[in-house]
């Protein structure tokens, strides 16, 4: 597992951990923790819960994910979303 750094200096491992912690603290049931590589949908994260994750991304990383980026590749897991955030931050 690589620990990639985006050009803006965000460590995607740290971002994945932050996303995982948010999901486990605010969305998941006790004893049903997600791991950074877990599939959001398989873990029961429906579209409404995913919206809360996107609002967390907005509040923490300062941008709202545009419609065209809301694809499975970016939303599959906390790590996939972390990679997207780092790419996006790197471009901005």
């Amino acid at each position, binding site marked *: 597992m690589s620990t990639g750094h985006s050009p803006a200096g965000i460590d995607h491992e740290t971002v994945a951990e932050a996303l995982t912690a948010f999901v486990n603290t605010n*969305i998941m049931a006790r004893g*049903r923790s997600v791991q950074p590589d877990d599939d959001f949908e398989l873990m029961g994260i*429906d*579209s*409404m819960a995913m919206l809360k994750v996107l609002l967390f991304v907005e509040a923490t990383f300062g941008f709202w994910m545009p419609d065209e980026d809301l694809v499975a590749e970016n939303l599959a897991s906390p790590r996939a979303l972390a990679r997207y955030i780092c790419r996006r931050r790197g471009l901005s």
Partner: protein
Amino acid sequence: MALHSTGHAVSSSNALLVVHCDGPIDSDRVRRSLDRFLDVCPWPAARLRRPFPWGKLHWAANRRDPLTPPPVRRQAIATVDELRHAIDAELNTAIDPRRAPPLRLLVLDGPPEVTGGGVLLLTWFHPLMDPRGAQNLIHHLVHLDGHPGDAPWGSTPPVFVRAADPRSFRERGRLARKSLEYMRTLPRVRPVSATDGAAGRVRFRHASFVEHESAARPARVTREIWWRLAVVGKAMCALWERRKCPDVPFLLPVAVDLRRKGDLGPTFGNMLAFHFARFKPSDAGDMPRLASALRDQMADALRSGQIEANDVAMDFLQYRPLAMVRRALRWKGGETFSFNCADVTDFPAALARCFERRVVNAYHVPAVPPRPGIGVFFNRCAGRSNVVVAWIEGVVTEDEVTRIVETVREGLGWTEAP
């Protein structure tokens, strides 16, 4: 919203969870599990109490009253018509929680070609529980069938009513007022129902489909509630046109399940807050744009705290008659909303087996209020995508229901289940 009388008829506030299994279900085992459940969950062992006239439901027994357990019945059926009739009767035999237990179970036995093997029906007074709560209850009963005295989620006691909100009455009152103020800003919906709003018989149609992955329309996208709302909105457009009101905007409640995600839990009660989606029938012409707009509306509702405020307001308003809610909102005339739509998502994997039978399919059917008198509901179970259209007799015709189901099927890229 609650049991309410319209003229001389009482509308059903029942909701059903229909579970088809691959073999007959032993009703004695269901009854035994329920007895065990009554031993570990304090509330349903007592007759439902509600202080006159509309106090909050509670389950503490009056010391002088006998305990009334919810009934578990068994019925033999021989034909598909009899199966249909039995489910229809459960939906329409209204539970009055002031006089009877607020839930009941029915086991239907019959030939495999009729039932698939066996059918379990859980019927409840729907302000009591939401569909996920009903699944939690079945899960608990199934667990107790093999593990007497032990709850599937450990030591947490099963409850119907959430723990009291720790915030002060003053703070909760402020939040509830905020929600009411928001609701008052919503435009009233012009009546478009074909009926006069009188209570009537609830009808429903259930159809099962198979979902397909496609590059143009990925399953992940079509599973999003925004896409489903847009699809149902498109289906309703044609209905609005036939009612000669093609420009009347849609206002519909979107239920937000406040439970934690991941698996079943000990909470059976109703844990829904609401957000109201608004769009025009003409918006359904561009589905991706409409889905995006509906997602943005929900994001705004979460950002602004409106969902949280609605949750608090519901706590103040729950189990009140719809008329009382309308008075609180100062609504005069019109309909409360345009139509119902909800997605219960996946039937829990933990319920793949029910009383030692494999679950072949399961879906829920809520009775819709007399007005607007129509709703479209989704869920997935055992690889099938289910759609249920429920309506009050007279609101729509059979042909119109067929068109709604077909528009939904087409909009979601589904094919008929084998």
